[in-house]
């Protein structure tokens, strides 16, 4: 710290012949405003990520896909309501609890776009150290990102549910039935959103390249699902209905499907609309919880080193 303060040492004339080099006070000021602290930074990061996942605050081009997918997501809800009210059905054709699973490809695509956008770009452009130079640490970062993506998914799948619910009430489908079913649907959607958010972020956080992230998320969601569906079909033909339920544990999609059919009174997409047994049901709960918690812990581990 050898800053020549007010006046240079007079004994040594500078090489450029300016003997009295000095630093002037040109009016830099200390920051004296309110310091908003970690919780404000966390909230900002959450809001920023949530907006970014729908393309708000980004270019018009990056709004096209999220809102396009959201429109596709909402269309069946509107059609369902229209069909139910014109043909006089006493319930909606697709249940609230399995709506997100019914639209799984669309939600999967949205997740595959949103998750890498949320974390891979920070890695690619090396903005992570900038975040950590603020009063937040990696726990705050991971928590904010997970919460933002889970909220985005919850909105993405929950708003169409709300549309269907409002339409169902207008079509006089029975207030009590509709409300309990809608409540269960929201629970199923919340679990769906939490599980997919942590899985998507975990996968995306390992690559700074968006394309890889998108491919990896789609692959991780679909390959196990195809494998499980194929093997379940075989097991069902062999007459081992018990195995069908246990097999559902091996992919995120079938896991949530079994969970909602077992505990939330939905209909599963398994062969013969089979509902897992009680023991398997416990397995579904445990595996879901373990996946969510485990992925979250791995994510925190992932950010122990802020670089790549």
């Amino acid at each position, binding site marked *: 710290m050898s800053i020549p303060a007010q006046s240079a040492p007079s004994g040594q004339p500078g090489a450029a012949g300016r003997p009295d080099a000095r630093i002037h006070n040109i009016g830099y000021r200390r920051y004296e405003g309110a310091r908003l602290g970690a919780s404000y930074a966390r909230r900002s990061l959450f809001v920023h990520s949530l907006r970014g996942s729908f393309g708000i605050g980004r270019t018009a081009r990056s709004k096209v896909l999220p809102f396009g997918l959201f429109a596709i997501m909402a269309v069946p809800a509107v059609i369902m309501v229209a069909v139910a009210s014109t043909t006089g059905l006493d319930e909606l054709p697709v249940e609230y609890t399995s709506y997100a699973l019914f639209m799984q490809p669309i939600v999967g695509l949205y997740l595959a776009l949103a998750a890498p956008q949320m974390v891979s770009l920070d890695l690619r452009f090396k903005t992570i150290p900038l975040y950590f130079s603020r009063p937040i640490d990696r726990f705050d970062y991971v928590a904010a990102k997970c919460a933002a993506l889970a909220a985005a998914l919850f909105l993405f799948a929950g708003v169409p549910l709300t549309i269907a619910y409002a339409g169902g009430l207008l079509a006089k489908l029975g207030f009590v039935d509709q409300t309990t079913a809608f409540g269960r649907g929201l629970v199923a959607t919340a679990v769906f959103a939490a599980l997919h958010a942590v899985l998507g972020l975990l996968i995306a956080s390992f690559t700074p390249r968006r*394309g890889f992230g*998108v491919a990896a998320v789609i692959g991780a969601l*679909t390959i196990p699902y195809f494998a499980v569906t194929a093997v379940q079909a075989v097991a069902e033909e*062999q007459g081992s209905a018990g195995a069908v339920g246990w097999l559902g544990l091996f992919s995120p999609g079938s896991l949530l499907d079994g969970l909602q059919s077992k505990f939330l009174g939905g209909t599963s997409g398994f062969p013969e609309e089979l509902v897992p047994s009680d023991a398997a049901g416990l397995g579904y709960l445990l595996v879901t919880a373990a996946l969510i918690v485990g992925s979250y812990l791995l994510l925190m581990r992932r950010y122990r080193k802020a670089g790549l």
Partner: protein
Amino acid sequence: MYNDTVARLTYRALLGRRRVLILLTLPVLLLIIAVAVRSFSGADDRAATDVLGSFALASMVPLIGVIAGTGAIAPEIDDGSIVYLLSKPLPRRTIITTKLLVAISVTIVFTTIPMLVAGYILNGNSQGIAGAFTVAAAVASIAYSAVFLLLGTVSRNAVVFGLVYALIWESLFGNLVPGARTLSIQQWALALAESTAGSGADITSDVALPAAVILLVAATGLGTWYAIRRLTVLTVAHDD
């Protein structure tokens, strides 16, 4: 039409380090499933058709096609190193055809061998099911490679579009909207499997055999032609 050096470079790009592991995971998964199903339920034709048709042909073959097809050219265009290849005294047509041949050979090796082995594990080629699906996988490999190589020259997000086509269009829309099935390489390949397999095998396709063959040839030919065209007009300078 074929250049050794380009082929060698492409093989190294496709089979180097991490990529070969990704290429190997799916065949390994298929073999594990095959062994599990066989030990679980014994030899059974329906089970074999289910596993080979709805897992291997529906998701393994297109995924390997996406990785090999786009991986043969897209990374080079993406990071700009294609310039060094283009600046050599080689017709650009040769570059595309060589890369296509490499992609096809990689896809065929990584799909047909596990398909045949899994088929024999599942039911010992009864009703010719293993053979039929191997033929289907080989034909589908050629078409997928051409289409995804084209995607690699057209778009920077080739992998994403490839996956959307392979998994969402073919599998999911194909299940919901019957019309989507006629525009699907998987169904064309299934048509071939249907005619190759024995009469007792329960393989069905929505496309008739002649139409399937014509569409397969057309997709491969047009894909290759347009990929050549794209690479011929590719400008070397970058604007970003």
